[in-house]
């Protein structure tokens, strides 16, 4: 299991980079609808960042259904275990 606090910290860095906002903050409960800049292309950029960071490859349907930080956390965990 990836540590949830550490995950949020690393994901924050990715979000800040990909959404080009150095002051952006997220927590484990942040949803796509909570962040203005989290549109569909930003979503794909975050996915690219997560895949690079954790060395995993998410499935296309997973990517489409993830709508929250928790969603990313669950996806990374399931891949980190099976990969």
């Amino acid at each position, binding site marked *: 299991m990836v540590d949830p606090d550490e995950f949020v910290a690393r994901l924050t860095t990715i979000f800040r980079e990909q959404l080009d906002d150095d002051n952006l903050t997220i927590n484990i409960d942040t949803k796509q609808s909570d962040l203005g800049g989290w549109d569909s292309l930003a979503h794909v950029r975050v996915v*690219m960042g997560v895949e690079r960071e954790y060395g995993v490859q998410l499935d296309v349907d997973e990517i489409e259904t993830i709508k929250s930080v928790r969603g990313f956390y669950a996806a990374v965990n399931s891949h980190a275990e099976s990969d």
Partner: protein
Amino acid sequence: MIGALRGLINRAWNDGELGSIGRRLRRALASDVSGSVEAAQASGCISFSLLIVSTNTINHLVDALCASALRAGILLHCQTVEYQEPESWLATHRERLEADPPDATLLALDRSDLQLGQCRLGDSAAAEACIQAALDRVRRIAEQLIGITGRSVIVQTLAAEASDPQLSADAWLAGSPRRLLAEFNLKLPVMARELSCVVFDVAAIANLVGMTHWSAGRYWYLAKLPFAPSCIPLYAHRLVQLLAAMRGKANRVLVLDLDNTLWGGLIGDDGIGGIELGTGSARGEVFIAMQRLALQYKARGVILCVVSKNAEELAREVFRNHPEMLLRESDIALFQINWQDKPSNISAMAEALELGLDTFVFIDDSPAERKQMRDAVPQVEIPELPNDPSAWLDIIQAAGYFEQLSFSTEDRARTDYYKGNALRTMQAKKIGNHDEFLKSLGMTITVEPFNALGRQRITQLIAKSNQFNLTTRRYSEAEVAALETDSDAVTVQVRLEDMFGDNGMISIVICRRHAGIWDIDTWIMSCRVLGRGIEQALLAILVNRARAAGARELRGVYIPTPKNGLVRDHYAKLGFAKAEEASTGETTWTLLVDDFVPAISLIDVRERVSADA
């Protein structure tokens, strides 16, 4: 800020790192905190604006492009148009583009835009029509772009797509996606050359990494990314190489080490019979392949040089007498074989060739030599190579050094020109008296207006010349073509021959006519022929023509750059009077036609006035 990012960029090669550097760079460029743009320009960076027109996603490339451009010393301003039909976008944005044209436009169309995926199988006529329709569409858009912007247009070849069958049958089956693509990719560059467009061979990059790595896969279905994110750095790097070539920043000199770089083993220890080279060992084959690539580059105009810590005679003997050696002494413009450190040797070469160190690529098997060179002369490009030389070619190929936008006969013979120069230098030393020496050269210049025959070389001189270049104004091939028929412009291209051979086209001048005054817009000369009185001879021709046309005054301007200090006093030396001096160092000079006193010329002039004489 930009300086700091520039320091980082040579260590950033994956798309994540490039992305973050690119983002910071774009912010720095947009806000221009504490004049960092000016500081970057003072250290030799140039600005370049690029418009990318695409029907797919392209914005995600911008950060990586800006970051890669910085590596080449270019401050890139990138504007993108996504998900739009180029024709309709151009129709609605025409005026804005005309008012503020980008330096270049990249037309990034894909297969579905060009309807090259769907053609009746086995029907060659239909396939032909399909390819022609695709080419016609690219032509229409490119022509429109050239018409509107008057600047360079870049077109791309097409990479295969995941849904293309890759069976052996597709190699011969008319109308198969692979055949359509292959034929389109052959014909597009030919058409692009006719239109004076620049070709970006994306298909070659895709082939280099292989379809499996190139394909965007999930990212295409999710977000219409044209290729895999992991290929962004390579795509960006190669596109930037083209932009750099447009601005005279392409590499032009390949400096090679000898022991364990051009052959296996140490010539000093192993002797000519003991080194590994050619058939007989796998390593020997590797070095032959390396030499073959070097010769390929040479044939395109790259100047080959050798720098090595060795006894010179021993090392040269390999070039003369080793039966399997492909490179011969005559292929090498300069040898620096001695026991001095390599950075001093390479700096001496730059001086002798009169080329900037940023045009050099250095290949050496020794990590220590590479590091010393990198520390001492960071401008030189130095690929980091693994111990096993059999992996080198892939790395050197991917780096895409020596990009070129055109090819002229001058390119094929470049090493000879530089060698001829060395011979002339020796003759000069022998004769001593400079005028006597010039007379002994028996120089003839041929002067004619810009024409289609000279167009590529003229464009090349405009793009590449940095030192003997009064205004450093860059014009695309399309703009050069337009000058040929512009009645308000007076253009000359100059070729030089002497007893040591044909020097090729060595100078160009563009004047713009305004009521009684000829404004010298551009004056460029190859540094190879400095000090031979060409400028004086050319001025006499210009003055005569201006007088005949009823003009009373020639006006010239010098716009300083970090590289053209050589010609700061060009107009003063030619007898012009300084009319203005701006705080930027820009100076304006005038010469009254009636005041002109011709210098005694040691050059024969052959003049052709009409364009097609």
